């Protein structure tokens, strides 16, 4: 029960940090699940996070993986509910009053201000993730090629990301 309570607390807290997308919560996700609670190692967390990018639907469903590692199916359910309920209720309520906020003079200031801060949080997440994932020249090169492909073409991200996995596998056996 203690573990389920911890899972609920951690993911409800992370949920509120996902300003501008799930990546904004990445630094804190790493701190809590790896360093504070030792639920997963950093490589394990990276693996789940990256698999989550491939899975259909919202790409933070990896919270279910961490919940499941800690406490099986109940852990996965608690992690999902904790991660989606607080912001879900907030969005539901704000969505209903939004038309009243549409002409609020602070609205563009909040959108512009939070916009740049959320880009900063995504950059921080990318740096922390890069420290763990880009350990050799090969992996750094893979990240650059995937970046260029996704930036310049409309290809589905799943293809180059799975291809990076296959190249990692081939390199392992060479």
């Amino acid at each position, binding site marked *: 029960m203690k573990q389920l309570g911890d899972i609920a607390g951690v993911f409800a807290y992370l*949920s509120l*940090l996902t300003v*501008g997308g799930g*990546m*904004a*919560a990445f630094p*804190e996700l790493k701190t809590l699940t790896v360093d504070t609670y030792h639920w997963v190692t950093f490589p394990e967390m*990276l693996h789940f*996070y990256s*698999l989550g*990018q*491939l*899975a*259909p*639907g*919202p*790409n*933070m*469903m990896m919270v279910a*993986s961490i919940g499941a*590692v800690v406490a099986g199916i109940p852990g*996965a359910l608690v992690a999902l509910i904790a991660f989606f309920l607080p912001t879900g209720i*907030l*969005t*539901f309520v704000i*969505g209903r009053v939004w038309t009243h906020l549409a002409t609020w003079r*602070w609205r*563009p*200031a909040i*959108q*512009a*201000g*939070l*916009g740049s*801060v*959320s*880009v*900063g*949080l*995504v*950059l*921080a997440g*990318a*740096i922390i*993730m890069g420290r*763990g*994932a*880009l350990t050799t020249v090969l992996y750094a090169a*893979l*990240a650059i090629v*995937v*970046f260029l492909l996704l930036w310049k073409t409309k290809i589905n*991200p*799943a*293809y*180059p990301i799975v291809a990076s*996995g296959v*190249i*990692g596998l081939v390199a*392992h056996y060479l």
Partner: protein
Amino acid sequence: MSDDERTWEGEPRPSLRRIFWVFLVMGATSLGGGVVGYLRTGLVTRNRWLDDVTFVELLSISQTLPGLNATNMSILVGDRLRGGWGALLATLGMCLPGATLMTAAAFAYGVGGDSPASKAFLHGIAAGAVGLIVVVMVQLGSRVLKTIADYVFVLATAAAVAGFHVSVPYALIVAGIIAIWWHRPREGKVYHPTTDKPQIGERHHE
């Protein structure tokens, strides 16, 4: 049929079962992310539950509020179609396939995740995912960053969190307040609401 039973596009209002099914299909088919593109195809093009203007407006709310774009969109669209139950069933449909897969992935990982081969494969996938995150950042940044000050806020936030281990809530609150104050409404400042709208073809992190 009364006006209450019609969507803004004049189509009949969908049943809860239909809402759940349409979001379940989008939740199951949007492999590799890009849920926003699937949402637009499913909601605007195929079912005509929303027009493009409303879609972009809801997407803009989704991106401003905390929470993932895909689930925020499910809540906002579900609520507009069928109230609270519509919001709940749309979100469940959107999340169910991915949640099931990632729970299964955790058990599979427990069985075979420690082998050197699967580690090498997953390490490659992680490297590719870094490339994806950077693209998402560049595309988001090219839309929301307009002045030198905005870039300063980005670098200061990233340096605080990734370099000096400042926890995210502190960084978010301090940098957020300063950045919002910087952009505060002033006399004579003209707001162009069309320039900061999210682009549908953009790669998002949902």
